[in-house]
């Protein structure tokens, strides 16, 4: 047989084998479909596989000192499979179970519960929700021990469905700032929304198979994905300051029957928001946190006189005016084209110095100064505002920051009255937080920094992402202008519109604001009052803005409505923060006579402690790591305490930690008696370490 023929023969044999295998496959297909078909189709019916979500635990929100502001806790809904308990168990206990249910939920009578459960059992239902009310873990433990239920899931039929609920341990405090989540555990407003991505984590999923009993059992088929728990958010909110701010605001809103109010407290140096409170009135006249007016676009309003700060900066930067230069504000009425501008004081202020214009918040004064100087080139004025950074959102961490609106002469809405009206805070829009950022810059020596409310994103103790203070504008104006502005802001409280909140303990600097509200394009007699400033003015620590919209009654001005809230907040913070008080108090405290016990130990440690406490200490030249002490006059003298191999060291006077380290390093076994410092040791110092390796030390 030739080679080719032989090969071909073998190829054909192999092909036949393959053909045979194909027949086998065909046979199996037919068999699975027609012989076993019914069985597999039945399995398909009951297979009841479901890929279900495994919820990731949402991260927590913390205050600046680690208090929980928002966390997720497990809650339970109680359901019942009435088909599971056997007749004897059921009949003898159903009455007492119904009684307990009625007593616990208080939504149906005992007989109604019994009827409902009996009927479900008669209809062989496997699932009955007893109440939609979500109960806590403690209640769950209690219910687990009720009759029938105490037999467990399989014999007693009780079903606890876990739901995670978002809990705010400080309830209403900062409610809107912290934010809320919806039923799907997704943040909808506030920090919960702005940081939802970090807080949410990633849900996992797992394949579950329905069991004949009605429950679901996970199928570990290697395709499951584990949930990744969310990160924690560490905020800058100080719970105490938040509480102070919120209650002060609340009282003011109630007494003035105002529409809404907002307070923001910010740390001057860092830009950290220590409190952010927003309260709005609902139709029943109650106040609650609904919208974040401090940040959001609804809070972007015509600021009124607080904006004179910006106008004055522009004026001082562009001119060489002095604080005691004067301007005639006339009889309190001034016509600009067809519009009439009025001052607050009937009859007008007459001639005022620049400082008095600001302190008394004379609209005519500032408008006259600004128009006189910038009328030829209004764009210059706008340029100053833009350069300060007032035209741009500050890029706050919370989503939905309102955009400031400052128009330019190029805008179609620009008119002859734009410049004078803008000079005292009309025809432009800013949010309270943006205004506060400007005031904070004045307090912070001209450096404008971005407010922050979230310091870091954490996973347990590990920092995942850190947010640092960002500088928006390293100098909003010259040093001399800044100094003048600070003097004028202090003057407002000392002898100006806000002198009602002046006090002797510490200085407050700030500016009142009262703006008429525009409704349907017309200025009405509704007012938007505010006070923005910082304290203590000598060494600014906090800046704060208070806004109260539409106060009713006879008090309608920023000085009467908002400024007192500012004072209350400032007073309380000042009272609680010891280190804001005069440093002289601390210096007088008497420390003499308290001398720490330092006898023997590690030289670096002891030197560090003594230097830290300001205790004079010296040593001989040798740099021995272990030392004993001598007292020479009022200072400590380090004597070397030689520790050498094979010699029993002297550990008397050491702390236990040091003694153990030294002794065990020399190969000794240590037994310890008592507590305190080492007072005695069983082996003599300086003797050779023999075969006896055991040493007893007594502490006292």
């Amino acid at each position, binding site marked *: 047989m030739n080679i080719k023929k032989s090969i071909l023969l073998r190829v054909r044999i192999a*092909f036949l084998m393959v053909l045979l295998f194909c027949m086998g*496959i065909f046979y199996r*297909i037919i068999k699975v*479909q027609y012989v076993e*078909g019914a069985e597999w189709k039945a399995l*398909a019916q009951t297979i009841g596989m479901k890929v279900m979500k495994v919820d990731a635990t949402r991260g927590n929100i913390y205050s600046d000192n680690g208090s929980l502001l928002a966390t997720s806790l497990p809650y339970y809904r109680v359901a019942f499979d009435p088909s599971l308990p056997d007749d004897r168990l059921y009949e003898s206990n159903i009455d007492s179970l119904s009684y307990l249910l009625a007593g616990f939920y208080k939504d149906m009578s005992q007989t109604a519960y019994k009827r409902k459960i009996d009927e479900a059992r008669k209809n062989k239902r496997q699932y009955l929700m007893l109440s939609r009310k979500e109960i806590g873990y403690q209640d769950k433990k209690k219910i687990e021990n009720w009759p029938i239920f105490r037999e467990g899931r399989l014999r007693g039929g009780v079903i606890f469905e876990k739901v995670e609920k978002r809990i705010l341990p400080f309830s209403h405090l900062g409610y809107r700032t912290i934010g809320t989540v919806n039923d799907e555990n997704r943040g909808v407003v506030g920090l919960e929304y702005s940081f939802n991505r970090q807080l949410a984590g990633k849900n996992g*999923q797992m*394949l579950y198979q329905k069991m004949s009993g009605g429950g679901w059992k996970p199928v570990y088929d290697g395709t499951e994905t584990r949930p990744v728990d969310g990160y924690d958010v560490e905020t800058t909110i100080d719970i105490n300051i938040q509480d102070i701010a919120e209650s002060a605001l609340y009282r003011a809103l109630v007494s003035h029957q105002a529409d809404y109010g907002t307070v923001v407290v910010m740390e001057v140096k860092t830009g950290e928001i220590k409190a952010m409170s927003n309260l709005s009135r609902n139709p029943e006249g109650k106040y609650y946190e609904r919208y974040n007016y401090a940040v959001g676009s609804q809070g972007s309003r015509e600021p009124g006189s607080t904006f004179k700060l910006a106008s004055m900066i522009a004026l001082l930067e562009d001119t060489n005016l002095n604080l005691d230069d004067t301007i005639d504000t006339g009889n309190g009425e001034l016509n600009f084209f067809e519009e009439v501008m009025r001052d607050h004081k009937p009859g007008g202020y007459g001639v005022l110095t620049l400082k008095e214009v600001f302190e008394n918040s004379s609209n005519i004064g500032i408008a006259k100064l600004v128009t006189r100087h910038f009328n030829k080139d209004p764009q210059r004025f706008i340029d100053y505002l833009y350069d300060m950074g007032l035209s741009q959102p500050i890029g706050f961490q919370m989503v939905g920051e309102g955009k400031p609106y400052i128009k330019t002469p190029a805008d179609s809405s620009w008119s002859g009255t734009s410049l004078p009206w803008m000079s005292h805070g009309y025809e432009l829009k800013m949010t309270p937080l943006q205004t506060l950022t400007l005031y904070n810059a004045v307090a912070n020596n001209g450096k404008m920094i971005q407010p922050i409310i979230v310091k870091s994103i954490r996973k347990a103790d590990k920092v995942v992402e850190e947010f640092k203070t960002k500088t928006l504008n390293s100098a909003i104006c010259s040093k001399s202008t800044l100094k003048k502005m600070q003097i004028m802001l202090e003057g407002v409280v000392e002898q100006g519109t806000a002198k009602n909140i002046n006090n002797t303990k510490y200085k407050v600097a700030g500016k009142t604001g009262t703006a008429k509200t525009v409704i349907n394009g017309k200025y009405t007699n509704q007012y938007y009052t505010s006070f923005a400033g910082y304290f203590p003015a000598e060494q600014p620590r906090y800046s704060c803005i208070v806004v109260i919209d539409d106060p009713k009654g006879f008090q309608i001005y920023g000085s009467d409505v908002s400024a007192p809230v500012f004072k209350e907040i400032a007073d309380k913070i000042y009272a609680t923060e010891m280190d804001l008080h005069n440093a002289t108090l601390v210096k007088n405290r008497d420390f003499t006579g308290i001398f720490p016990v330092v006898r023997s130990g590690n030289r670096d440690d002891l030197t560090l402690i003594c230097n830290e406490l300001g205790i004079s200490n010296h040593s001989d030249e040798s740099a021995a790591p272990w030392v004993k002490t001598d007292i020479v006059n009022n200072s400590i003298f380090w004597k070397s305490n030689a520790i050498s191999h094979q010699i029993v060291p002297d550990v008397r006077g050491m702390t236990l930690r040091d003694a153990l380290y030294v002794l065990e390093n020399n190969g000794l076994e240590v037994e310890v008696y008592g507590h305190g410092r080492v007072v005695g040791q069983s082996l003599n110092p300086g003797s050779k370490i023999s075969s006896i390796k055991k040493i007893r030390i007594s502490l006292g």
Partner: protein
Amino acid sequence: MNTLKEWAYRNMKGDPVIWFIIILLSVLSILVVYSATGSLAYKMMEGNTEYYLMKHSALVLLSMVSIWLAHRIDYRYYSGISRLLLWISVPLLVITWKFGTNINEASRWITIPFINQAFQPSDLAKLALLVTLASMLSRRQLKISDFQNAIIPMLVWIGIICGLIALTDVSSAILLFLTCMLMLFIGRVPVKYLVMLVLIGGFSGYVALSIGQRGDTAISRINEFLDDTPSYQARQAYVAMATGGVFGKGPGQSDQRNYLPSAYSDFIYAIIIEEYGIIGGILVLLLYLALLYRGMKTAIQSDRPYAGLLAAGLSFAIVLQALVNMGVAVGLGPITGLPLPFVSMGGTSQLFMGIAVGIILSVSRGELENVGKPMNNQYKEAA
């Protein structure tokens, strides 16, 4: 239409039936994989179902390109290339075993630096071994019964490569071993030596099982198969087939894809039957048979033993793997984890399958030019 025909005629040389079969399988592949990766897409890509469609289509296209490139090269060159690749694949397999990427707890992949593509050196080794074997067999046809000189060198290579692959992937190693045996059988190695080969294979298999990573898996899968109640995967596959009926549920209508693990690779045949019915299942089976038949025809028409053995060996290798995959899906054997060639979703293995078909096509178009001396027909010399 005509221009397309002309273009195909100009560019797709070799057996047009093989081209046709591969294109049919590729189209089916894209349809079924798109359907079967639905739940995978939800799990891994947050519901971006197009991700796997695009990725798989790209790979299908790539394997077509590799077929085209491979079929343009004269098949005689493959002998030398494959010998070189065989040497390279030995260290690659060792590296993979020691340092490879773990996917499903088996390190079968190494990631190529720079292009960051996971690739299975066993695919390369398999192809290189088969081509080398064809060349070695053909050169030894005249002294094929000489065990010492003719058969030993081949056995050494088979033993090394199968053994190394078995360290990480027992099923592939067994399949490759069987394919090699079939090739030796076709290449006129006396049956008594084949028995010896089985012994060597069995021994190296045993060693690999005891020191490799996958021994336990292999044993548990075999136990599972011998056990009376089918495993979870197998039951889901049977449900898929049973509910498919004669005509199937229609493209993209599978229910079992959600419950059947690896529906897009190991068990894709079950999904094909579910969606396209017995008709579809038989059609796919026939396509592979036709591929094998055309491969054999190529072998018969070739002039040299090397060409014949090459075409026959590679055709059998492809089709055997297909049959094993289908056999597993219908419950004829234990779960192997082998993909269905040209249909399953699977990275570089698609590429190497493409090259294998390309080589068969290259054989079918014959020698491109006479290299140096007049064409000598070794069959005649041998006879």
